[in-house]
């Protein structure tokens, strides 16, 4: 991440020294966020999220499986993410890259650890059958900050998720019940990156390329941290981390207001 993009990085830092970013935003300013619900009729829940011109789709399919033997009365959740070569000339076709796996896992942890989904409520027959919430994130246009866009999209899609009919051991996907997936918490990830001595949120692609380090902080509506992920090649001090948590918590509070 360092060196290869030296001159661009110097330029970004020069701007930040004067309190500016290339696109005119302040360091702690998000691009406009748009959430569109129910973008795919065959999904049990879905949403499109745009953060500036970054765009992702999130969709939920419900499946029925045998519960894990160590949690016989609980359902489960799976999160997948694909960094589609459709969305960025640098993404390659093929099995998920480590970046895609990290993205999916960070989103997964925020939802799982906040206990937003009542896993016991997904149990159909103890030890035999349970619902599995399968959430997939697909990138449409990557102009930076896919993690936050994906986390927002994941939550938005889950809020719209309706159970299909389940009868005689079979799912009838065409028959939707009126039953919604209940969510008790609102986890929102906000990623803060460090460039030089500056901390900024909602990075663009060029800012991501120039970053020294990154911290994704997922908080719930009470301000409790439910997931953390440090990225980037450089270390972060305790002081920096705590400042980043403050920034992320404050932004997450604003973002939470956007959910319909």
């Amino acid at each position, binding site marked *: 991440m360092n060196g290869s993009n030296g001159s661009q990085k110097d330029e970004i830092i020069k701007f930040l020294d004067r309190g500016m970013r290339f696109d005119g935003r302040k360091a702690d300013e998000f691009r406009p966020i748009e959430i569109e619900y129910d973008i795919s009729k065959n999904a049990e829940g879905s949403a499109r999220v745009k953060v500036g011109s970054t765009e992702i789709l999130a969709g*939920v399919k419900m499946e029925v499986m045998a519960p894990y033997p160590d949690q016989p009365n609980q359902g489960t959740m799976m999160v997948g993410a694909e960094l589609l070569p*459709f969305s960025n000339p640098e993404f390659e076709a093929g099995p998920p890259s480590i970046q895609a796996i990290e993205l999916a896992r960070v989103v997964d942890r925020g939802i799982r650890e906040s206990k937003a989904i009542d896993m016991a409520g997904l149990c159909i027959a103890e030890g035999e059958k349970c619902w599995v919430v399968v959430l997939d994130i697909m990138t*449409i246009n990557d102009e930076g900050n896919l993690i936050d866009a994906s986390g927002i999209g994941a939550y938005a899609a889950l809020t719209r998720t309706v159970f299909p009919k389940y009868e005689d051991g079979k799912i009838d996907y065409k028959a939707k019940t009126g039953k919604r997936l209940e969510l008790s918490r609102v986890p929102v990830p906000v990623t803060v990156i460090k460039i030089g001595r500056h901390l900024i949120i909602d990075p663009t692609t060029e800012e991501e390329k120039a970053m020294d380090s990154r911290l994704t902080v997922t908080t719930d509506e009470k301000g409790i941290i439910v997931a953390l992920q440090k990225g980037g090649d450089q270390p972060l001090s305790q002081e920096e981390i705590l400042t980043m948590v403050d920034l992320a918590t404050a932004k997450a509070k604003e973002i939470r207001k956007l959910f319909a």
Partner: protein
Amino acid sequence: MAYEQRFDGRGMTELRPFKAKAGIVRRADGSAMFQIGDTVAYAAVYGPRDLFPRFLQDPSRGILRCHYNMMPFSGSGERIRPGQNRRAKEISMVTEKALLPVLDLSEYPNAVVDVFIELPQTDAGSRCAGICAASIALADAGLSMKDMVSAIAIGRIEDKIVVDVNKKEEDYEGGMADIPIAMLPRTGELTLLQMDGELSKKDLARAIEAAKGAVKEIKEVQRQALKDKYEGDRK
């Protein structure tokens, strides 16, 4: 048994409502959306760009690569596992063949033009919708093309030829043939032809005739999408 009335009440040669938009992915060199009924296809074009690994390069001309992908939540049944299954690979290949005849890639030796087709929602006819979107996206990328490529799924249901088969018709359990066709609207030549089911030679001719009418309508919407984008850009 006769099929007198289509399940959704359409006329036998009537398409579902369809629309197109050019320029939906900013990072791509060209892109488009094509929606017909509840089937939505996005296409993004990257290139011509350098092709690696090098042994894939053709020094005489650029190559075209298509990737067709149904999103995991896009189908009417179970979740579709990510990664190209055999069906997706075959559709990618026939999509390539459907688009290649209108392109002149001789100016781009050793290069590749990548076409990525993504389907967020499907209700039959997805390969045809993908081809329609891809054709707009290739033009949006500024590649020189002899003609648009327009595509439509024709069906034979009992003794009727129907235009733009939806999922319910595709799943019809009586006498049914599903015939996706891609065509160069100007010449009426076919660049994609597949068929599942049973079909007489006479009905094949009827199906091709029906496709000719449909692609003329589709081509106009594809052209308009491009015009709208470029007129919008100038404003």
